[in-house]
């Protein structure tokens, strides 16, 4: 099962990486980037890192890719209207299929969505938390500081555009 998922996701990842590089418009590249993130997330799930595959979708597709699409639309590089009209039905079908796939395990086996550990042992997510806030607590807090100062720096750069 994970073998099939791995090879399927790796084909998706490589093809959509080529799509990012060779698509003519930046907006199309952003949509290929979404397919790329789905592929990477599938690879991580096939390798057994379930938390990381969810984090990839949440952080990349939820935050970084939305930032990219916002900037592209802000620059006025949008898809032609005719192209969007042709893609609308395909996008709706794809979204419906995605929701069905997400709901299937909830309907059929709500308790077996994620592999649970033996009694007494820590689960995957608990292990991540105990490592990140135990051995690597300093690194985690430094990462939080980096994100904070990135926000402050972005604000400063955009505020003083006359000096650049």
């Amino acid at each position, binding site marked *: 099962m994970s073998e099939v998922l791995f090879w399927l996701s790796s084909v998706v990842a490589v093809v959509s990486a080529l799509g990012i*590089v060779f698509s003519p418009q930046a907006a199309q590249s952003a949509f290929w980037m979404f397919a790329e993130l789905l592929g990477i997330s599938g690879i991580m799930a096939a*390798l057994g890192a379930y938390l990381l595959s969810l984090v990839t979708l949440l952080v*990349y597709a939820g935050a970084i890719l939305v*930032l990219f699409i916002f*900037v592209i639309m802000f620059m006025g590089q949008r898809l032609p209207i005719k192209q969007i009209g042709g893609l609308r039905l395909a996008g709706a079908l794809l979204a419906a299929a995605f929701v069905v796939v997400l709901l299937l395990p909830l309907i059929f086996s709500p308790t077996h969505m994620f592999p649970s*550990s033996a009694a007494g042992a820590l689960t995957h997510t608990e292990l991540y938390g105990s490592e990140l806030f135990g051995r690597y607590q300093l690194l985690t807090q430094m990462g939080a500081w980096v994100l904070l100062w*990135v926000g402050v720096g972005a604000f400063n*750069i955009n505020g003083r*555009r006359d000096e650049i």
Partner: protein
Amino acid sequence: MNLNSVLVLGALISTIGILGILLRKNLVIMLMSLELIVLGGAVGLLGGARSHGALAHAVPDGALFIPFIFLIAAADACIGLTLIMTLFKTQKTLWVDEMDNS
């Protein structure tokens, strides 16, 4: 799905990203190719972590450092997009060929 295939896959994704930086002239696509390089590195690191055993009940350091890779990728996307927007305001273009630094 042995270690070799995962490493080759990560290297392939990173190489496509380097190709994007070298071939494309659009700044946003170049930044997306940079993200591709980082993602390929993350896949390779996860393959290395997986080679020490199943990831379901243990977290090796290779898998543990991937959130930090994502953190750096988020930080460089944020700063890079800010710089691109600032450049776009002064240069009125996204294409690196048409920019002048006078």
